[in-house]
């Protein structure tokens, strides 16, 4: 395999994509090439499957007599003074068929009712349900949704409910002229037999940016929100005051942010809309773990003595009486003392106090250890897999870890995990460990009692354990021979599936080292870079891999440039970041994130 072969394969594929014929020699070459390159084979298979699906719901050749009769009846019924085919024009105009039916009514209603109420219609309900969309959406949200989708869906519900309320409240008062479908789309007046056009109310105030905050981890009954105990998976919104008797974590989405509160902490969510998040910490400590935020977005923790504002980082704030400490584990933040106009930068490994943010010292001690532990836990909620509820009984004397992430020792614990298998390790006081697989099920909580958690010497389970609680397969053993591309890719994918990020990175490195000039190696470079940046928190190492990927080029060049920008941002290299953004905008002017990075470029230029 070499670059020339890959280019030949690509050229053949492009011609096929355009529907041009290929020779038998080319077909044979393509087959041989794909036999050695599973990614290329997968692409061809996927393409065929897509085309099959696009044409897969075709009717039989014979016509539908009922439908034909309807069409003929419509043609005849409209052959009157309005002209024989007025209904066809009207139907085309209103985008509904000319034959009124329950389904047509629902569709037409759904097209024309206020935006906020349409969610129920798109969920497959009938016209009558358009009056109660939030409830319809609530039911649609129930358990089988990704964590991201739960949050997004809740945002939609909030927005829909608020917008609907606004519409209802405004509809009675505002009877002024409004556009109709006919007005908007056609100069042809509706025929007499068609339904009157439905008025479109003015767009409600867009409240869709209000973000719910999801409880991702807490001890049962130990997290109070405005005086009410809240459990895992429930949401709270702007203005909520939180009291965490034990440690608890909350998750924002878009961009991801997790806030873990220490035992005894009290905080209030003072901002949660449009990516602008603000948490006021009044007691105790918290650690915020954030993905880089976009232009116009921010994450701020305020206290009585000042605030700390972050742009993609891990940082902690602790209020202990009059002393308020701030520490940065990763990235960079700005600390602003109350009453001061200027902000003081604080970078990874540093700590300061709100009383005198200009003075910094190395971050260490308990705050550092605790922050790093909480940040690791937060990584459990970064993915977009289905969310499952895990309930862990009191495990006195046992240290528990999921996928290598240590859980807090605080009695009973509930948390969200990604659906699917996870490695649960329990370690006793004498160091004996037991590792088992637990399976997160989005449909029902997974409950683990003392019996399931009990530690025994050795990490291998005994034979005959129940199927849902089995052994963790050992790490990929060193093969006696050089593994194939496919084997390495599978190893990486297995590790990713099990959230063993280091193992996945190692597999990708092996692939790059063993097969450096293959398209799979190019792809592995990108995956490795992505892992290093997102999962392993190593923007410096990720940057090297993104550069290596870009040096060879590939179909993910735009994504790689975005990754590079984010790395530079995380590293605080603003000048390099600006240059990388300029290159990205120049080379990928149609990419999905250009608007975001144009804004970011303006921000950087204004500094």
């Amino acid at each position: 395999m070499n670059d020339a072969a890959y280019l030949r394969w690509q050229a053949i594929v492009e011609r096929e994509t355009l529907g041009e014929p290929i020779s038998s020699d080319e077909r044979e070459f393509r087959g041989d090439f794909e036999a050695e390159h599973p990614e290329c084979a997968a692409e061809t298979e996927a393409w065929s499957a897509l085309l099959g699906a696009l044409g897969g719901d075709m009717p039989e050749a014979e016509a539908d007599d009922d439908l034909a009769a309807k069409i003929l009846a419509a043609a005849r019924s409209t052959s009157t003074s309005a002209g024989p085919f007025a209904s066809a024009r009207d139907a085309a105009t209103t985008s509904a068929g000319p034959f009124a039916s329950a389904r047509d009514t629902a569709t037409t209603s759904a097209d024309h009712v206020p935006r906020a109420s349409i969610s129920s219609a798109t969920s497959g309900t009938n016209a009558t349900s358009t009056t109660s969309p939030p409830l319809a959406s609530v039911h649609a949200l129930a358990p089988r949704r990704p964590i991201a989708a739960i949050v997004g869906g809740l945002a939609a519900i909030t927005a829909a409910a608020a917008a609907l309320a606004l519409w209802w409240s405004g509809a009675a008062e505002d009877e002024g002229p409004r556009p109709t479908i006919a007005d908007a789309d056609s100069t042809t007046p509706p025929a007499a037999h068609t339904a009157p056009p439905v008025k479109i109310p003015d767009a409600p105030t867009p409240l869709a940016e209000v973000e719910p905050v999801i409880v991702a981890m807490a001890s049962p009954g130990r997290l109070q929100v405005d005086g009410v105990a809240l459990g895992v998976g429930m949401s709270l919104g702007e203005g909520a005051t939180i009291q965490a008797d034990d440690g608890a974590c909350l998750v924002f989405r878009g961009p991801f942010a997790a806030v873990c509160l220490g035992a005894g902490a009290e905080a209030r969510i003072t901002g949660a809309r449009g990516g602008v998040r603000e948490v006021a910490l009044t007691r105790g400590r918290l650690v915020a773990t954030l993905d880089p935020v976009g232009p116009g977005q921010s994450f701020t923790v305020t206290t009585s003595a000042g605030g700390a504002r972050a742009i993609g980082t891990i940082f902690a704030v602790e209020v202990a009486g009059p002393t308020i400490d701030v520490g940065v584990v990763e990235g960079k933040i700005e600390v602003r003392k109350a009453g001061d106009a200027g902000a003081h930068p604080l970078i990874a490994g540093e700590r300061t106090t709100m009383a005198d943010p200009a003075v910094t010292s190395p971050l260490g001690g308990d705050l550092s250890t605790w922050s790093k532990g909480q940040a690791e836990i937060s990584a459990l909620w970064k993915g977009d897999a289905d969310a499952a509820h895990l309930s862990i009984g009191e495990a006195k004397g046992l240290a528990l870890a999921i996928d290598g992430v240590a859980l807090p020792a605080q009695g009973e614990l509930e948390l969200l995990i990604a659906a699917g298998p996870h490695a649960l390790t329990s370690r006793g006081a004498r160091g004996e460990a037991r590792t088992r697989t637990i399976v997160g099920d989005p449909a029902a909580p997974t409950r683990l009692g003392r019996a399931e958690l009990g530690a025994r010497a050795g990490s291998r389970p005994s034979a005959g354990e129940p199927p849902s609680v089995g052994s963790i397969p050992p790490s990929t053993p060193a093969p006696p021979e050089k593994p194939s591309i496919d084997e390495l890719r599978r190893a990486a994918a297995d590790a990713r599936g099990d959230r063993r990020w280091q193992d996945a990175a190692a597999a990708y490195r092996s692939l790059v080292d063993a097969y450096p000039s293959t398209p799979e190696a190019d792809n592995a470079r990108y995956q490795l870079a992505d892992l290093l940046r997102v999962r392993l928190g190593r923007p410096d190492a990720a940057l090297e891999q993104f550069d290596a990927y870009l040096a060879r080029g590939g179909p993910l060049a735009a994504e790689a440039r975005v990754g590079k920008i984010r790395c530079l941002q995380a590293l605080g290299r603003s000048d390099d970041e600006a240059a990388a953004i300029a290159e990205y905008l120049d080379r990928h002017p149609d990419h999905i994130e250009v608007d975001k990075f144009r804004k970011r470029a303006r921000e950087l230029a204004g500094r």
Partner: protein
Amino acid sequence: MDKVKTREPIRAPDVEGDRKLMELVAAEDPRAQSTLVHRLLGRVQRATRALLRERADAEDAAQVALLEVLRSAGSFRGEGTIESWSDRIVIRTALRLARRRVTSHGRIDDRAEPDRIAGDDEADASLARADLPRDLQEYLRALPEARREALVLRHVLGYSVAEVAELTGVSPNTVKDRLLAAREELRRMIRRDHLIHPRAARKTA
């Protein structure tokens, strides 16, 4: 690529017969109308179902398109078959309705269901029936309408690039760009999301 479907064979032309038939249709002769509708309906449904994501929308489009064909019968000049003449009316009607539906659904989804693209449960079911892996279903849902149209017209309905360009009102190069962009996006998705891993395949099956 082996599964690419081609347009159904066009019957041997009967130019004079077709012209006579269309004259009668234009004169609103019921039997001629019935003959024409029955002759074209299967073909029209095939096209509208390929172009519109929801079956009910496709039925609507078939009705609207055939009524338009009946209405326009007087413009038939006999310079080709009725099928090829009507195809243009049908495709343009279906495309117009498809774009309108997408616009409508897009507006809905922006507001109410950010994690859904088309918001069409029926289309979802159709994709599931097609036994398409979940990742590919998501790709198809997210596929921009212009690229989807180009794919359907070229690879499902069998139009040439030039014909697709004419039907969609863009240049042939734009059609090629759309086809290649659809393929490129698929390649990016596969390489980005590990689509070929057997576990992923099982998960999505």
